[in-house]
């Protein structure tokens, strides 16, 4: 693929992951460039979340090589792993907010663990992050159980961004949100990507957010990357699953229309 490891945020080569007899990822290779928003699509149960979880080290791999920010995870020292932990932020599908802590404490948690900051600064930065993800300051003292689905996702994103990471992993960020909230969330990801210069690795099912947010798309089928590239490349792909996904009944409405709107707007 001709890109040096300097320009790559994540480099996956020949990855094999399985549970028992079942092979989920079969010699998969994927690159994520620095500063891009990559969308990963695939069938339910097809290994999207498994890939994400393997990259962040939650699931052990059987074979292959994963490099995050130029560091090979197999030979990384503890110090390097610590550094990677600090430079990556993860938004879990259900938010995974700590239920015993308030919203503000949740966002402060990574800062407390990794940085020595004054109380005032930690508070102000956490408040700033909450405002950046569009939350009201009055929500800061609420507990996660008191939040709606969309708010939970926003708080989780604020927590993922707490340490100004270079890579943000998003696991189905718009699932379970109504179309307006999902659209707002798409805009939010795009804005934050621009202001903070983030690399975003996004697992999603949402064709609309793939179309609006993602610069590049990778389609996962049969444990491999079946197609990779822009939305146009996806639409042109002849792989049967990719065809069914991007040119199916639901896709026709969602994908074509916004595209034509964009063209008109220009």
């Amino acid at each position, binding site marked *: 693929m001709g890109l040096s490891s300097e320009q790559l945020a994540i480099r996956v080569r020949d990855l094999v992951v399985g549970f028992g007899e079942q092979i989920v990822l079969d010699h998969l290779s994927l690159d994520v460039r620095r500063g891009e928003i990559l969308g990963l699509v695939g069938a339910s149960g097809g290994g999207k979340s498994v890939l994400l979880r393997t990259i962040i080290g939650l699931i052990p791999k059987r074979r292959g090589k994963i490099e995050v920010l130029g560091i090979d995870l197999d030979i990384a020292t503890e110090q390097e792993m610590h550094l990677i932990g600090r430079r990556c932020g993860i938004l879990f599908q259900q938010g995974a907010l700590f*239920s*015993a802590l308030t919203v503000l404490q949740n966002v402060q948690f990574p800062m407390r663990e*990794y*940085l*020595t*900051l*004054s109380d005032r*600064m930690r508070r*102000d*930065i956490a*408040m*700033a*992050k909450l*405002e*950046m993800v569009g939350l009201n*300051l*009055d929500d*800061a003292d609420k*507990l*996660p*159980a008191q939040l709606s689905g969309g708010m939970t996702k926003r708080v989780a994103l604020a927590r993922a*961004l707490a*340490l*100004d990471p270079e890579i943000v992993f998003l696991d189905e960020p718009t699932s379970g949100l109504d179309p307006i909230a999902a659209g707002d969330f798409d805009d939010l990801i795009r804005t934050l990507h*621009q*202001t*903070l*210069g983030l690399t975003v690795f996004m697992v999603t099912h949402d064709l609309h957010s793939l179309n609006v947010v993602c610069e590049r798309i990778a389609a996962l089928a049969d444990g491999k990357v079946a197609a990779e590239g822009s939305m146009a490349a996806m639409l042109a792909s002849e792989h049967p699953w990719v065809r069914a996904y991007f040119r199916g009944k639901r896709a026709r409405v969602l994908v074509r229309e916004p595209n034509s709107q964009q063209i008109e707007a220009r």
Partner: protein
Amino acid sequence: MDLPAPLRSAIVGGQVELTAAGSWTAAHAAQLELLVDAAVREFSTAHSMLIDIVGIRELDTFGAYLLERLARSASERGREVRWAGVPDRYRGLLEEIRQVNRRQPASREKRNTFLSAIERLGQRAIELGDDLVGLIAMFGAIGQAAVRALAHPRTFRFTSAVHQLDRVGWQAVPIVVLITFLIGAIIAQQGIFHFRKFGADDYVVDLVGILVLREIGVLLVAIMVAGRSGSSYTAELGSMKMREEIDALRTMGLDPVEVLILPRVLALVLAMPVLTFLGSMAALYGGGLVAWLYGGMSPEIFIARLKEAISIDHFKVGMIKAPFMAFVIGAVACSEGLKVKGSAESLGLQTTTSVVKSIFLVIVLDGMFAIFFASIGL
């Protein structure tokens, strides 16, 4: 590489010129904050401020926030603040940070600690009352469900009740028998040790027999059942509540009390007398064993003395209490389970509350039975 100082200052004609350079990122935030605070203190009286950030190589939210803090300290005093050398790539971030933290959240009013302590006490009293009402409501709901099940036996969840009976009865036998056996042995050992001073070794049989059959047997079993089965009821129903399973049942027109709680409570009410019987026997066995091995009293004598010392009344007093205690444990465990809210913390809290409350109520109930039996002369 020769690194320039992160923040340099110069005063040119009454204007402070601050030049930031290097990495203004999270990793250096602690030192940078000290520099910024020092600069704020030092230059708060200057007429105007110029912040030059052309030398900054890396900037993130933390650095941007500190620069903004510097600028705000001056602008809040009505001084003029100008920026110089802002690279395009950081313009968006600085602009974003300028927007935030503008509004101070409504500060909470200071409260009198003494008054708030009294307020808490009052709230606890109200909660206690609510708990009592809730528990009585649960008794009523279980009773209602039981009557309905009697009227329409086909609606009773027989399979579920048998399954629960297996869990709280059969599977609890080993641990209940082991612990009561040990306690019986300990009581006998202590009895022999102290009675021997008065030459009254033989009375250890009375001690073990009456104590175990009347009080210790049933109380120990009740406490173990509350800790073992009551807590699992609470956790189970609580997590069902968290995952909206209980709401799903309700919307299907089913009564959770009938479907989930009645079989559980009934299983407990059936299991507890059996466990109490087994536990009491194990305790007597442990006592007899110790009397034989430690006190030198042969098993024949122990049994003969036991026959004289205890009557069927002692046994009845213990056994009568068992189902009532089981009912209280079951009702408390289930009503606490239904009080669980969305968070994992609340599940843990209610489980603890369930065990503490049911053990407390079991002991209160035991006291009330003692008064009752004394007044009817049993």
